[in-house]
């Protein structure tokens, strides 16, 4: 009977030790790598005049100011210096996650964000020339320490606009 008791004790010991090793390894890894990011990403969003998704302007008059809200979120696991570039294109100008739109910058907004933080700010814009199917594009760029310049981050949003001349009285 004594031998049987000893076997049970050793099994209990083994289980206890295994639990302790697992707990120790987990505690150690959490201490050494507390902020490990599995899949880093950044967010870019455009909100309407009420800071909500919707009610985006579609028909505008030349030089008519309109307000939108920019939203940028940082989940890259490190501090990031972002720039949102606003560009005005048309149906033929293209943009993708790899290539930014090849037109002049219309407006530019910068922000430095800690990991896990986001930023929302109103921007008021206006278009100087009348036109149909304008593509108002917001591109997210991020400062790259290696090249010491901003690099296109592959995130973009767009709004379609028709801009007409003001009515002549």
């Amino acid at each position, binding site marked *: 009977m004594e031998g049987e008791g000893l076997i049970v*004790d050793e099994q209990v*010991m083994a289980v*206890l*030790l295994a639990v*302790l*090793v697992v*707990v*120790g390894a987990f*505690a*150690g890894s959490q*201490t*050494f790598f*507390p902020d490990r990011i599995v899949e880093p990403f950044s967010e870019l969003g455009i909100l309407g005049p009420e800071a909500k998704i919707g009610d985006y302007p579609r028909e505008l008059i030349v030089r008519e100011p309109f307000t939108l809200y920019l939203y940028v979120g940082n989940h890259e696991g*490190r*501090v990031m*210096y972002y720039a949102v570039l606003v560009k005005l294109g048309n149906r033929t100008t293209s943009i993708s996650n790899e290539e930014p739109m090849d037109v002049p910058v219309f407006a530019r*907004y*910068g*922000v*430095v*964000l*800690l990991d896990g933080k986001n930023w929302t700010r109103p921007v008021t814009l206006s278009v100087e020339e009348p036109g149909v199917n304008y593509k108002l594009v917001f591109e997210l760029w991020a*400062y790259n*320490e290696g090249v010491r310049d901003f690099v296109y981050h592959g995130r973009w949003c767009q709004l379609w606009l028709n801009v007409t001349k003001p009515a002549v009285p």
Partner: protein
Amino acid sequence: MAVAKAERLGGDVSGLVDELNQALTLLEEGETRNDEAMLQGALSKVEDVVANAPVAGQGGVAAMQARKVQSWLVIGVVAALGVIVWRYEPRIFWRLWVRSKRGWKVKA
């Protein structure tokens, strides 16, 4: 970027980031209004951030070392507990078991 380096060293850069964003706001407003004073203010804030970033970085290095010492202590304590349990647990367990069943009577 001095702030990024300070952050990599484990420093608390939230104050520096706030100051940088204030500088960006000043820069934007200064460019819009063509206000030289605002632009100078922005530049001054950026210089402050660059000057203070190494201090934040050094604080981060110290904090990181403290965390490492703490983690090694935790690992040491867990290992010591393992050895103690391995060596003394059966004796302690059965002693407690016998003590808890002290009042039991065996029925023949």
